[in-house]
């Protein structure tokens, strides 16, 4: 999923301060799952903002709405009326959702309520971890399904570096050394020899280094 984290109340207050009628728009898929931008978070944030502005002696009318996904037209249209009837939208979707709404409603300011952090998983209760950077050329098969681009602090393809200690990364002892994981897994799979071969420099064109990416699916074009 796309993992996001809600911005601080102070930052959100600053962003929305110029507006009197505000729609707080939640997103019911990824960011709901990571407890950052679903229905519950929309409700909590709305109450906190109402209270905060009231304390400051400022009036603001907040409308709440959560749609299934802010990155798909089918759902975005469900919010059209609410968006058009407010001065601004505070979107609790990921960066893609925020921009999708903004693209479709040119005269309404749309602002982010979250910091979109990474493509990751719920590792355990209360802990989300980054697993993928969306580089566009997946090599997980080679590395025992542990991604050195996303999970090694130095993106080493011929790792590990000299800072791997007791399975931890030198950058942060709480972070697993991706190369230790790669080695352990390939050893368990009897494929450690995979790592003896030189790995070529990565062709970054498939990543965002090649500029904004598009995916064209001819078979889906009507």
């Amino acid at each position, binding site marked *: 999923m796309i993992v996001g984290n809600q911005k601080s109340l102070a930052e959100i207050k600053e962003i929305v301060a110029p507006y009197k009628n505000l729609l707080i728009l939640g997103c019911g898929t990824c960011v709901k799952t990571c407890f950052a931008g679903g229905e519950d978070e929309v409700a909590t944030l709305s109450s906190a903002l109402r209270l905060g502005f009231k304390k400051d002696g400022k009036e603001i009318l907040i409308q709440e709405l959560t749609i299934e996904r802010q990155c798909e037209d089918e759902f975005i249209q469900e919010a059209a009326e609410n968006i058009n009837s407010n001065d601004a939208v505070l979107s609790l979707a990921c960066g893609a959702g925020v921009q999708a709404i903004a693209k479709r409603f040119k005269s309404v300011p749309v602002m982010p309520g979250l910091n979109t952090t990474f493509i990751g998983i719920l590792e355990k209760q209360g802990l989300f971890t980054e697993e993928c950077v969306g580089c566009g050329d997946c090599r997980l098969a080679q590395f025992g399904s542990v991604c050195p681009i996303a999970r090694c602090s130095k993106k*080493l393809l011929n790792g590990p570096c000299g800072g791997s200690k007791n399975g931890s990364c*030198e950058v942060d002892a709480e972070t697993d050394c991706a190369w230790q994981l790669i080695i352990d897994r390939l050893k368990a799979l009897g494929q450690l020899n995979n790592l*003896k071969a*030189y*790995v070529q420099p990565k062709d970054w064109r498939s990543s965002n280094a090649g500029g904004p990416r598009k995916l064209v699916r001819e078979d889906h074009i009507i």
Partner: protein
Amino acid sequence: MNNSIISKLHGVLARGDFAVTSECGPPRGADPDVISRKSGLLKNCVDAVNVTDNQTAIVRMSSIAASAHLLQNGLEPVMQMVTRDRNRIALQSDIMGAYSLGIRNILCLTGDHQTFGSQPDALNVFDIDSIQLIRTLCEMRDKGRDMSGFDLKSPPRMFIGAAANPFADPFEFRIIRLSKKIEAGADFIQTQCVYNVERFREWMKTAHEEGLTEKAHILAGITPLKSAGMARYMADRVAGMDVPETIIKRMDGVPKNRAIEEGTRICLETIAALREIKGVHGIHIMAIEWEEKVAEIVGAAGLLPRPDIN
């Protein structure tokens, strides 16, 4: 690589002499006199001097410029180059530029992560890793081609070095990594500081059995200890460092004003032990901001005068 001698360091190692290299950290400023002063301290007691490349991710004078200053002062640099700060375009360009300035030795590194440095808010690059950099240099030199396959009119010919840490985890993978560096084209290897001679001997034995000591010259790292505090700091805080308890105890066991003496004694004992290990072709003395110590250590170790290579 054809057999012609590329650098003084190459010459020393090629004829089977025991090589001595040390290190010079460029200043956090633009004054070339700092390099001149350090050059004076190292002259005639080492074969070549490593010039660090923004070590520990702290911004300093560039290793290319500082290497050029060393050359002007009559010392041979081993220019360190990290892949943290430059993408493949900048790396290749800087290699050619360095060669044009007379720099003939290079040590290829990935580099300390920027979060350790003074500007942790920086964006890192890591476009390629150290092994890919070694391969790049090797192909430039031996095939005359850059990474795109373009035939270079006058390719840089560098004596290529790599670092190895025999003490980092996972231990069983360390030899595979060394082997990958040598296969990629490393001519010489400089290791992490050796305090745990036994563990180092074990690593060297495996390297020897794998035939790696025949393919590359291994220079063992040495860092003289100044105090018990330094020993403990390195043991606990420096990633990939193995300082055995016995060493810390020895440093702890002497009064503070005798610590440097004890540190030097440990250092000389280590050098003596390393010289007995098959496949160790030299030492690399990293006396961090303590360049004046190097001449004393090299002299006391019986490694002076340095061979004359021209």
